[in-house]
């Protein structure tokens, strides 16, 4: 059963069309890596899924609930409160972490469960402590993000997203802002989540990682999904010329 369904998604920025009709589906427990050159629209695509970008036309359903649909060429979103609830089934990890700098690590993780989901402080803190343990940062609970390394901040950001118990997690280039020696600790956390069958959509440039962690890989270029398939098929035996050219370029680096 599809937990996320996207039909004919189009996104324009002014007169520039960055997404030119994306059809996409993901099953519960599936890990999808999205590859593609910069400017291909892959980040914009996942940003459309939780309303960080407003779509121009198309349809998005999450867990069989319609977030946005197009009627007579006009996009209609679910009412604000409904839309917020539907998007509440998703979580997002950003390239630049975007932790809240004025809150300690543990407060970063408990803030949304308390404010948005109205959980009790005690319950939220218990969940947060478990999550911090999982990402190996329990001893940093009382520190502020500014005293953490980039890799540590990103692990906290993952814990923060998990604290809301999302059905599906979006990663927007989670290691692109990190020094090379710090990407490993973040990728390890994502691998652990994959092993627990967390549904994930990961925009990444890490080909080896995608090969290791993803059930399926999608290659995007020029606002289209050019090719998709199992990680092995797409990365090791790409059919499309553009996919091949992209992978060759990545291997040269």
């Amino acid at each position, binding site marked *: 059963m599809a937990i996320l369904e996207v039909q004919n998604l189009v996104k324009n920025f002014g007169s520039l069309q960055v997404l030119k009709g994306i059809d996409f589906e993901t099953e519960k427990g599936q890990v999808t890596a999205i590859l593609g050159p910069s400017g291909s629209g892959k980040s914009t695509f996942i940003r459309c899924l*939780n*309303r*960080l970008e407003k779509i121009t036309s198309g349809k998005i359903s999450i867990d069989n609930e319609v977030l946005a649909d197009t009627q007579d060429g006009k996009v209609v979103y679910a009412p604000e409160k409904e839309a*917020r609830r539907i*998007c*509440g089934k*998703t*979580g*997002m990890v*950003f390239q*630049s972490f*975007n*932790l*809240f*700098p*004025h*809150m300690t690590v543990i407060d970063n993780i408990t*803030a*949304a469960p308390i*404010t*948005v*989901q109205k959980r009790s402080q005690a319950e939220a803190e218990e969940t947060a402590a478990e999550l911090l343990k999982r990402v190996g940062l329990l001893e940093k609970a009382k520190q*502020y*993000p*500014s*005293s953490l390394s980039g890799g540590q901040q990103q692990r906290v950001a993952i814990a*923060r*997203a998990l604290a*809301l118990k999302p059905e599906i997690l979006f990663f927007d280039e989670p290691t692109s802002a990190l020094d090379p020696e710090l990407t490993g600790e973040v990728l390890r956390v994502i691998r652990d989540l994959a092993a627990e069958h967390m549904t994930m959509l990961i925009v990444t440039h890490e080909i080896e990682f995608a090969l290791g962690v993803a059930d399926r890989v999608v290659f995007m270029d020029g606002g289209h999904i050019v090719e998709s398939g199992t990680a092995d098929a797409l990365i090791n035996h790409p059919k499309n010329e553009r996919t091949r050219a992209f992978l060759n370029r990545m291997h040269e680096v």
Partner: protein
Amino acid sequence: MDFLAENWAHVVEWFSYSGRILPSLLQGGKITLLVFALTLVLSLPLGLVFGLMRISKIPPLRWIASAYIWVLRGTPLLLQLYFVYYGLPSMGLTLEAIPSAVVAFTLNYSAYFAEIYRGGIQSIDRGQYEAAKALGYTGGQTMWKIIIPQTLSRIIPPITNETITLVKDTALITSISISELLRAAKGAVNRDLDTTAFLLAAILYLFFTLILTIIFKFTEKRFSRHIRRES
């Protein structure tokens, strides 16, 4: 030491004179402090209202706030004071001198504070709004719990500046016959033909601003705990 010994009588006389006029200066200082405190307490929240309107998604709110800020920053505070005290009665609204002063000062300072708030809010990275939205925060929750708390460490220094200016601007209300600190000092100088009262007034103003500086330093530190300092 010799100098002191020779002029001992003068020194004693100076201190005893100062002691005699100090109560009337302190009386004026109380009025200064009252107008200052009321203005600050009222203009800080009013400024936030206009600051938020200024960046609102609703165009008419933005226009109103821009016009308000333009008028109140673009005309002299003294003129605004005259307008409230002498001008409003002709429109059927008569206020006593001190309430007039508080109204005029509150309107004027709220315009400056609005711009400080606006600058603080606009300096926060877009990623903070996106993170909050992705976590399911409403617009209001994002503003109050995520954005505004982060602006505090940035807006306290300019607010400190404005607040210190406010202490000194209170001297303007002497022009609508309020017996504040400066008027009390001037009264003593005119009566005794001795400028000591001016010196004492200066010391009192300095004392006010020193206390304020200390309070704001402390507050700034409190809200900057999360900022790592290079040591």
